[in-house]
Structure formats: structure tokens, C-alpha cells
């Protein structure tokens, strides 16, 4: 092990985000500088992908992996292993214990189907077959009082069945267990002691919420992914330790907060959005780096666009999500995804109507221009025809774009069926996709009571910077931020994450003075749980933070509203609730009774935040590397025509530079498009910012 001159000053922090196609790594050194690495993922063995990218980075520094790890103060990891286990149907063989008489809520799914008219496809297969959903006598009532004791003989019979059937992991979901988990805990004891089962998921621990279907489905997914996910993470942790890593391997959870591999064993279901949730830390970082507090991100990759919102210093969160058709309740960042990306397929339907999406061409065959056998035109092909992309090497040289193939695909699949020219076809595809992107952003802003005029749109991913200015302008946003590190958005965000976990309790009671003592004591209990959890994770009291939250609703309403920074104070809770209710639903009901439904304490172990580097303005004005004919669109997306457009190299743009559109900026893995009337400037952080006439 020798010191290399290229190695930055220790200690450093490392984040590795394993995505479907690429494994991204960001190392931030003691001086706050970022070093970015990318290698192909190894879907069959994701830990191989982690080691590959580490070796690649080590080589670049002229060091070895041991050196890289031994001076690493913090190692964060985002992984799609939980999601892929579900999507590929490769989880554990799961048995389920349910209250006698109620075997089927998991399979009935409350009848959830996205589009009723689309009734021919079946549901995704149920994760626990009915013959492994075993009934257990015993009943709690709606207040958690025992009506009938647990039937131990049923439990024994179920254990016998599970053993005979080779069940590896057991989910327990008994009625009203969120009010009283005693019967579930008794089941766990039996399953451990008499059945020898190592993997037991209890619904009142995994998802303490009301609703047997949602709680049960979450618990089953937890049991289903648990063995595979936990073994993978523990093996990776061990491997990295052997190679020299000192601290615990931290994994990013769906809520954007990290957890140590030792502690994740109880709740692997919380890892289903492990990668994309890196966006939370990334948004916090961009806010700090640019001074814009309210941000909406639009991260566009090959087939989809993820939209996320940060307002008032917080990234919007939800606790409902769906993976592969399975419904989950798990604290997670609120991501709205639409099928609009570079590889989105366009065409004309049987009756001559243009469409774009939701189907995508994927990495293989990819857009027609890749020349890998793709026959169908994609958004990337349309960009090429309009001059916004240039023929030749693309995506850091990974592929080469062939203009003639793009034109041919658009001609046969769009232009000829519609009786228009190839250029008009390309214009149509871009306009339709940008209209869909605009609607996706409006959905999480306007439709949730947020005025887009307050927000800066963050355009990330390989294709985001091509659409950012057009969408931001039509949205009426303050401007568009194109981060230089947009390509490793999530890995960057992981480096800015804290450790944290939600601790919740269902608590249904009227919001009045009589309940406040109990509220205080529940909060105290939850905070105690959170404190113990953080201490176990190695945090000192000074590095702990506790955020009490409450869910409330008007009596009789079906869904509730989350209030952050909650105090056990009737007046303050009511006021905070009504503020949120007014924002979300447009009205308040001053005379109606308000109920509490859930109390929550978010326990946070703070890690040192990333400190944005700031460059001094200056440097010579950049000179375009070329000028080419690029198609321009007006403020409402209306087509204007081709115009000679200067093309800049990203590396030539330095802090303080200001340029007027139309122009293109070619970065290594993306191209930034600014239209006529747009003004682009380089911020002190080095990131690009596009302003409009109105901003």
C-alpha cells in the first residue's frame, strides 16, 4: 500500500448507488471536492458491481481498494436489491399467519386495479399462496382488548405446515394488532422456539397502521425480500470490512435516511426505494449550494421521469407506495413517475393518432439511432433529427448516434402514417413528451396546493437538461437548475443523508384537552424507542434529533393529513392541521371535530452535511466549440424553426458566466438546451441556472 500523489486528502466519504444499468460512485474528500465514477452494474451479483466501481476508482487514484476503504469515514450504499427481488419474483417462500376466518384479504387486495376498463390482465401473483396462509384462533377488538385468547394449537398446526412445506420466512398479520400486538408476539415466540424460524415479520412492528390489507401486504413483502436482502447486505458489509472499511456500512432507506446493515434486518421492506430516495439528500444539498429553498426535480432517464418536490426545507414524503403491483405502507419520499424518457417510443395508432409512451425501448435495443436493432422511433431519435443532439458519440461514448436510422424510424412509424414530414414528426414527439412532463410536474405541485412560481425546477438525469428549460418556462417556475453532478444525483444525495427511522403509533382520539396527557406520554414512549434505536446505531445524545409528527383528520373523513413539528397542544395542532388541509383540499371546516389518527416520532442521527464548494467568479468568456442548426420552440412549446445555435463545452463554463439562448451546452453525459429568450448563468457552485423573461 503506497501513497499516491493523485489520492485526495483523507478522510473521505463514499457513496455507491447500484442502479439497473450503472453503478455510480461519488467520493467527497476532506476538502469538499467530488470525484465521480461509473461502471456497469452486475445484475446477477450486485456486490460485484460495488467492488468493480471501487476498484475502478482506486485505479484512477493509483491506489488499491484497501487504501480507499481504510481512510473512508462513512460508506453509504443504495441498492435495488429489494425492488428487484419483488419485480423478478425471486423472494423467499413465505408462510402467513392470519386471524381465523380472515384468510384472504391479501389476495382480495381490496379490488385495487389502476384502470377498471383494462380488466383482462390478471393481478400480479399473490406472494403467499392460500394454502400457506394459515388461520390462528384468537381475537382482539377494535380497541385492542382481547376478546378470545390465542389458540396455541392452531399455531402449532401452522408451524407444522410451514415446516413440511419448506417455508423460509413467516409474516404474521392478526386483526387489530396495531392496537395490541400481544398475539403476534406470542406467535413469534412459537415460531422461533418451536418452529426454529429465523425470519419472522410481525405486522404491528413492520407497519403499525390500521387496515389489514395494507399492513398485511407490507408485512408479506418484508418477509418475502428479507432473507435475500439482509444476506446480501451482511455479506457486502463483511467483505468491505475484510478489505479495510472501519465504520458500519450504511444503507439508504426509501425515506431518504440511512440505516446500518445491522439494524436493517427488521425492516428490509423499507429499502424498496433505496436508490431514488437519494434525491432527498441531493435536494437538500442543491438548496444549500444554490440558495434556492423550494425545488422540484425532474429526473429523466431512459424510460421514465421521476418528479420530487422540496418545500419549506422538506422533501415531500408519503407512506403509500406500490412496487410491482404490490401495495406497501412504508415511509418514503413522494416520487411521481411517468413513462417519459429518452427511450420513450413514439408512433401512430391504428386510426392515425400520434402517441409517445408510455412504452420505452430500454437499453437494448434502445433508440433507433443506436443502431442496435431498434426499429421504433424514440424521443432521442426526435432530438437527433431536430439537431439538439449531434450524430456520433453519445452518453460519454457508450453509444454512437446515427441520424439516418433516426430519420428512417420516424419516417416509417410516424411521418408516413400521419402524412407529415419527418421533421414535423420529430417536432410532434417532442411537444407531446414535454406536455406529459409538464403535467407530471403540475401533478405534484399545483394539484397538491403548491404554486410552481415559487419553485426552481431541477433538471437531472441524462435527458432532463434537454427538457428542463421548456417545461420550467411553461410551468412558470423561477428558473431551471442543471446541476453539474446531475448524472450521479442519487449517489451524491446519499452523502448528504442522515441516519433515521420513523416510530409510529396508531392513536385514534378526538383532538381535545383530555387526550393531551396521553399524547404526551405516547410521544415520550416513541422518543424513548427512537433514542434506544439511535444509541444502538452508535449515536451520542448530541447527535440525536427527534421530530414529532401527527396525522389528523376531520371526524368522518377517510384520509388524514400529516402535521410536522407537532406539539402536544390542541390549539397548535388544530391550526397546523387546518393550514395543511387548506393547502391540500382548499377549505377548512371551523366547526367540525378534529381527530388524531397517528402519532410519529422521527428519530434522526445527524451526520456531517456536505459543504458545497464555491468557485470565485472569473475566467475568460467561453467560446462556442461549434454552431449548428437546432430546432427552436416558443414559450408555449409552439414550433419556431431551425436556427443557427452556438454549442458550448460544459467544461468551458465557469462561475459567473452569463449567456443568452438559444444555445446548447454539451456535458459528458447530457446536453443542456436553452431556448430563445432563456438566459443561462453559471452559479458560484458551478451549477448551471436558466432564467426566463418572467423570472
Amino acid at each position, binding site marked *: 500500500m503506497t501513497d499516491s500523489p493523485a489520492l485526495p486528502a483523507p478522510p473521505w466519504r463514499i457513496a455507491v448507488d447500484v442502479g439497473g444499468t450503472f453503478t455510480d460512485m461519488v467520493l467527497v474528500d476532506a476538502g469538499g471536492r467530488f470525484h465521480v465514477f461509473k461502471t456497469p452494474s452486475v445484475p446477477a451479483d450486485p456486490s460485484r458491481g460495488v467492488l468493480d466501481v471501487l476498484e475502478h476508482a482506486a485505479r484512477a487514484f493509483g491506489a488499491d481498494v484497501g487504501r480507499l476503504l481504510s481512510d473512508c469515514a462513512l460508506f453509504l450504499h443504495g441498492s435495488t436489491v429489494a425492488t428487484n427481488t419483488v419485480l423478478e419474483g425471486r423472494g423467499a417462500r413465505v408462510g402467513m399467519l392470519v386471524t381465523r*376466518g380472515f384468510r384472504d384479504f391479501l389476495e382480495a387486495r381490496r379490488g385495487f386495479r389502476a384502470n*377498471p376498463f383494462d380488466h383482462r390482465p390478471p393481478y400480479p401473483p399473490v406472494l403467499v399462496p392460500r394454502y400457506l396462509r394459515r388461520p390462528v384462533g384468537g381475537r382482539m377488538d*377494535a380497541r385492542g382488548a382481547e376478546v378470545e385468547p390465542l389458540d396455541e394449537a392452531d399455531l402449532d398446526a401452522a408451524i407444522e405446515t410451514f415446516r413440511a412445506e419448506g417455508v423460509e420466512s413467516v409474516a404474521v398479520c392478526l386483526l387489530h394488532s396495531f392496537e395490541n400486538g400481544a398475539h403476534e408476539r406470542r406467535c413469534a415466540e412459537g415460531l422461533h422456539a418451536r418452529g426454529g424460524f429465523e425470519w419472522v415479520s410481525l405486522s404491528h412492528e413492520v407497519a403499525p397502521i390500521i387496515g389489514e390489507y395494507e399492513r398485511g401486504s407490507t408485512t408479506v413483502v418484508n418477509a418475502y425480500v428479507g432473507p435475500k436482502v439482509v444476506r446480501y447486505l451482511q455479506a457486502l458489509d463483511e467483505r468491505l470490512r475484510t478489505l479495510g472499511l472501519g465504520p458500519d456500512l450504511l444503507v439508504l432507506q426509501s425515506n431518504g435516511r440511512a440505516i446500518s446493515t445491522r439494524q436493517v434486518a427488521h425492516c428490509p421492506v423499507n429499502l424498496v426505494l433505496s436508490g431514488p430516495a437519494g434525491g432527498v439528500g441531493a435536494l437538500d444539498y442543491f438548496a444549500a449550494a444554490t440558495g434556492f429553498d423550494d425545488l422540484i426535480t425532474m429526473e429523466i432517464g431512459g424510460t421514465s421521469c421521476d418528479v420530487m418536490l422540496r418545500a419549506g426545507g422538506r422533501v415531500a414524503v408519503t407512506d403509500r407506495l406500490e412496487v410491482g403491483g404490490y401495495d406497501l405502507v412504508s415511509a418514503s419520499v413522494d416520487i411521481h413517475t411517468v413513462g417519459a424518457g429518452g427511450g420513450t417510443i413514439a408512433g401512430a395508432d391504428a386510426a392515425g393518432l400520434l402517441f409517445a409512451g408510455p412504452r420505452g425501448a430500454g437499453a437494448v435495443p434502445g433508440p433507433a439511432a443506436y443502431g442496435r436493432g431498434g426499429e421504433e422511433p424514440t424521443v432521442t431519435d426526435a432530438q437527433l433529427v431536430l439537431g439538439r443532439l449531434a450524430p456520433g458519440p453519445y452518453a460519454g461514448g457508450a453509444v454512437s448516434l446515427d441520424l439516418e436510422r433516426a430519420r428512417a424510424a420516424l419516417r416509417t412509424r410516424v411521418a408516413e402514417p400521419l402524412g407529415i414530414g419527418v421533421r414535423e414528426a420529430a417536432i410532434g414527439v417532442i411537444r407531446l413528451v414535454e*406536455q406529459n412532463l409538464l403535467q407530471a410536474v403540475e401533478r405534484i405541485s399545483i394539484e397538491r396546493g403548491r404554486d410552481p412560481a415559487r419553485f426552481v425546477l431541477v433538471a437531472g438525469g441524462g435527458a432532463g437538461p434537454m427538457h428542463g428549460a421548456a417545461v420550467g418556462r411553461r410551468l412558470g417556475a423561477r428558473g431551471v437548475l442543471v446541476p453539474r453532478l446531475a448524472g450521479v444525483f442519487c449517489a451524491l444525495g446519499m452523502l448528504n443523508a442522515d441516519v433515521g427511522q420513523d416510530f409510529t403509533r396508531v392513536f385514534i382520539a378526538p383532538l381535545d384537552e383530555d387526550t393531551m396527557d396521553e399524547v404526551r406520554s405516547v410521544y415520550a414512549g416513541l422518543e424513548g424507542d427512537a433514542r434506544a434505536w439511535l444509541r444502538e446505531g452508535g449515536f451520542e445524545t448530541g447527535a440525536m434529533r427527534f421530530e414529532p409528527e401527527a396525522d389528523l383528520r376531520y371526524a368522518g373523513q377517510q384520509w388524514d393529513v400529516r402535521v410536522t413539528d407537532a406539539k402536544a397542544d390542541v390549539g397548535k395542532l388544530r391550526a397546523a392541521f387546518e393550514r395543511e388541509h387548506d393547502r391540500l383540499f382548499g377549505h377548512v371546516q371551523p366547526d367540525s371535530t378534529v381527530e388524531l389518527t397517528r402519532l410519529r416520532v422521527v428519530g434522526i442521527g445527524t451526520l456531517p452535511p456536505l459543504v458545497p464548494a464555491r468557485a470565485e467568479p472569473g475566467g475568460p468568456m467561453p467560446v462556442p466549440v461549434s454552431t449548428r442548426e437546432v430546432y427552436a420552440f416558443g414559450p408555449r412549446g409552439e414550433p419556431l424553426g431551425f436556427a443557427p445555435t452556438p454549442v458550448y463545452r460544459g467544461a468551458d463554463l465557469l462561475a459567473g458566466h452569463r449567456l443568452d439562448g438559444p444555445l446548447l451546452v454539451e456535458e459528458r453525459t447530457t446536453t443542456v438546451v436553452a431556448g430563445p429568450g432563456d438566459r443561462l448563468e453559471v452559479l458560484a457552485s458551478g451549477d448551471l441556472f436558466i432564467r426566463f423573461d418572467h423570472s
Partner: protein
Amino acid sequence: MTLDPVQLALTQNRLDYITRQMGEVMVRTARSPIFSQAHDFTCFVCGPDGWLVSQADGIPIHSGGGGFAVRAVLRDFADDIEPGDVFVLNDPWRAGGNHLPDWVVARPVFVDGRRVAFCCNRAHQSDIGGGAPGTYNPLAHDTWQEGVRLPALKLISRGETRRDLWRLLLANSRTPELQDGDLRAMVGATRIGAERVAEFAGEVSADQALALFDGILDHAERRMRAALAALPDGVYEGADHSDNDCFEPRDVAVRARLTIEGDGARVDLSESSPQIRGFKNSTWANTCSSVYTAFASFFEPDIPRNEGTFRAVEIIAPEGSIVNATEGAATTMCTVFVAHEIIHACWKALGAASPEQACAGWAKNVFGITTGRHGDGRRYVLYHGLAAAGAGAVEGRDGFNQIGHLCTLGGLVMPSLEVYEQLYPVRYRRCEFRRDGGGAGEWRGGTGVEYEIDVHTEGTWSFRGEGLRYRTGYGAAAGLDGEGGEMEVHPVGAPTFAAPKFGLRELGPARLVVSSPGGGGFGDPLDRDPEQVLRDVRDAMISTESAFDVYGVVLTPGGRTVDTDATLRRRAALRQNVTSSSKAP
């Protein structure tokens, strides 16, 4: 005028988005759970002449009604339609309504002084008066017993709300606060929609907007005609029956005679039964919606659903029949039953034309409502919706179990019983799939549930047991029918009785025991994958007996694997029996 195909695609996409946004506003601003939870409403945009152009957000049984309502406004108000006006209506005979509880709010949209569109919604109200709380009066035998009738009324005139009229509407509801809030939500949603449509029409010009609306209708018509052209020309028949008129046993038939000629279809319902005394008579708008639902669900789901789509389908429904009742008939239940029978009759006829696309029948629901009071006097209304019926199978998919109404294509979300035990004075004893409930087939019909609940207070029980005691989920393509429903009531300290099909009962605390009915199977049960039959047996979804008798599958001792040789022999023997004698059960 030749249309820019790009602009056409942008316009359709944008109008669909606007109707969804109107739906969002409805959900967000409404007070009653009918909007926010059950989503029992539809938002739509019509052209200036009333033709429905877009309704991306909506429930199936509202598919075809929107245009009738707006055309009634045009007929009654002709030159008296001004910017800032808003209309409300519900009447099936005077105003193109489908049934009285569904109110339509319609707002004209003007650009440069020209009317370019109407933004509208149709939504189920909490209570509109009539003979029973909650809009459904099972004892009604005329429309006046069902609630307030509204011809097209100008609710807002040039931006000024007619307060007298608003008060009249609220005065006719048992739940005026909900009515007030929901009406505001409906009006507010049309305002947002109108702003957005006006913005669009302003961008492209009024002329261009109207041409684009026509282009959208034409495109949808071409899509539907292409689907119809793929069916062989001919005359196909389908019928479905009810066994009661809400008061007494009686055969009530819906008979569809479908003529496919080139790329057009005609559905002639002339041979259907005369109208009945009870509240299941269909109105013209509801019959059209039912036929459209059957067609739209039969073909690809991405065919647009606007009035262009259905220009290709001509409907004949004689006045005075169960499918087009004369003015004054009781009709409230028709959006569920007889809609169900109309959809079934059309599906059967379509299935005769295209057997591989055939849809097996969805069982008719049996559950009703219990209303009573909590210990502290608060009123509760409990729908026994968990006792839902099973859906029919199609090629490639077993029927959905415990799914609910055909008229929504199962789109309403089932309640959570944990939530219900918190909200209502009840305890559930059982709710799980019924064995052998779904019709056998290569693809098995969805099964219903065994449902048992104790209701702890006295209350009024409203029965709607249409699917009780006969088989309603028909099998398709040699698939078998699903089982009929059963329902018993066990009042504490009083004799047990079988539930009536329709009617009201005052009861003390009681236990309700239901076997909800099953949907039909698709294809010959002898063609079902034996491994799937094994799984069904292991899952106790079917019995070993029906595996042997109906599916011809023999399991090895212990029941853990299929005995392949014995199964081949058994299936050959059963096939022999079918050809030589009559059919298996």
C-alpha cells in the same frame, strides 16, 4: 379544414388531462365520502353542440350519459346561455339524466364571445329526498318517491348564484351540509376545467379548437369502427334475466340482438321485457351508458371513450320497456341493475361474434345496507360491501374474487374491516373466499365470500339481494356458471329468516350470514392446467370432488401432486360422456 395531426394528439392529451384535473378538484374539495372515497362521479368536456369529447376521469356506467344532459341544456336554454352561467339537472326524461341521484353540473366555455365547450361533471349525491334516506328507496314504484326532479336549471347566472334556487336544492336533502359542500365542489371543478379549456382554445383560436374537437371525435369513431370491422358480419343474440321486479318473482329479460355490418353495429333491445313496478327500470341515458360500457370493456382499453366512439353503435330501445321506461317510472337502482343485465346481454352477443374475446358473466351483488344509531345517538350507515360477488373469467385470466359491481367494472375499492369495526357497532366473524363458488372453466370464475357479521344495535336493514338464490355469473365458451348467493339473517332472540331480494326490515341486534355469488368460468374445465387445479384444491378454492367430477383431475394420495395418467384417462372419459350424453354439472 385539414388538421395538424400533432395538434390533434396534443389536444386529446390535454383535454384528458383537464378532465382528470377536474376530478382531482372534486376529490380534494368535496365533503362527502361518495366523492372522495368511492369516486362515484365523472368529469367531462363537451363541444358547443353537446357532443362529449373527453371524459378521461370517470366511472364506466357514466360512459354515455354526458352528452344527453348538455343537449337538454341547449334545447331548453337555446339563446339564453351566457358566459358565467352554470346549469344543474338530473331528470331522466326532461334533462337527459341517467337516474335522479346523479346530478350534472354544466358550465359553458366562451372564447372571444363564442361558445366553444361545456365543462361538466356528473356525481352521485348523498341524499336528494324521496322515500328513504340515502337516495335508494327499495319500496318506490314511481319516480316521485325517489327524490327531487330537476329539469335543466340555471343555478348560476352570469356569475351570480341564484341563492333561492340553491336553498331549494338544500331544502330537499336530508344532508344539506354535505349537499352544499358537494355542489360547491362540482361547481368549482367546472370552473377550473373551463379556465383550462378557455386557455387552450385561446391559444389555438376558437375555430381551430372546434375543428380539433371534431377531429378527436372522428379519430375515436375510426378506432371503434376498426374494432367492429374485425368482427364477422352477422346477427348475434344475447339475453340476461332478473327473476324479480323488486316486489315479487317475475322473469324480467333484457334481450340484445346485435347486427354487425361492415364497421358498424346495431344493438336492438326491442324484445326486452316491459317496464316493471320496482326501481330497476332503465332510462335512455343509462341504457346507452350500459351498452357503451359493454362495448368499451370488450375491446382494447385504449380506445377513447367519447361520443365519436359510439357513433358506430346504434341503439334501439322501445319506450315502455325495462330498457327505456316511460316518464314517471321508478329508476334509481338502474345504474346497477338493470345495467348489469344490459351489459351481460351485450357481452353475450359480442361473445357470439368473437368467442375468443368473450367475457364470462360477473355475479350480481347481494349486499345491502344497515342504518342505525350508536350508543350516543349518532346515526351510522353501514354498507356490507365486503360481501362482494366474484367476476367472470376471460381467456388468460381467472375471474377476480370478491370484486364488486359490474357497472363500475369492479372499480370501487373494498372497505377495510378493521376500519369498519372502529366506525360501526359490529364485529366481523368471517370474511373469506367461498369454496367452489366461481364457475369452473379453463379459466375459473371469481368466487364470492363467506361473510358473517354481528350487528350490535337495532337498525333498519335495506336489502338489495339481486344475486340471491339463482346463478347470475354465466359461463362463456363452455365455462360453467358461478354459484348463486345465499343470505340469512339471525336476529338475536327471534327466528332466523332468509333475506328478501329487496325490501326494508326493522331489526334488533342480529347476525348476518352471506355466501356471496361467484362469476362464470371461461373455456372447458377439462382444458384447465392440471397444476392450476391442484393449486386450487390445495388452496381450498375448489373441492377434491369438483377437481375430479368437473375438471377431471386426479390427485395422488395425499393430494400433493397430479396423477398425470389417471387425469388423462379421467378427462378422456368425461369428454366421452359429454359427447354421448348430456353435459357435466
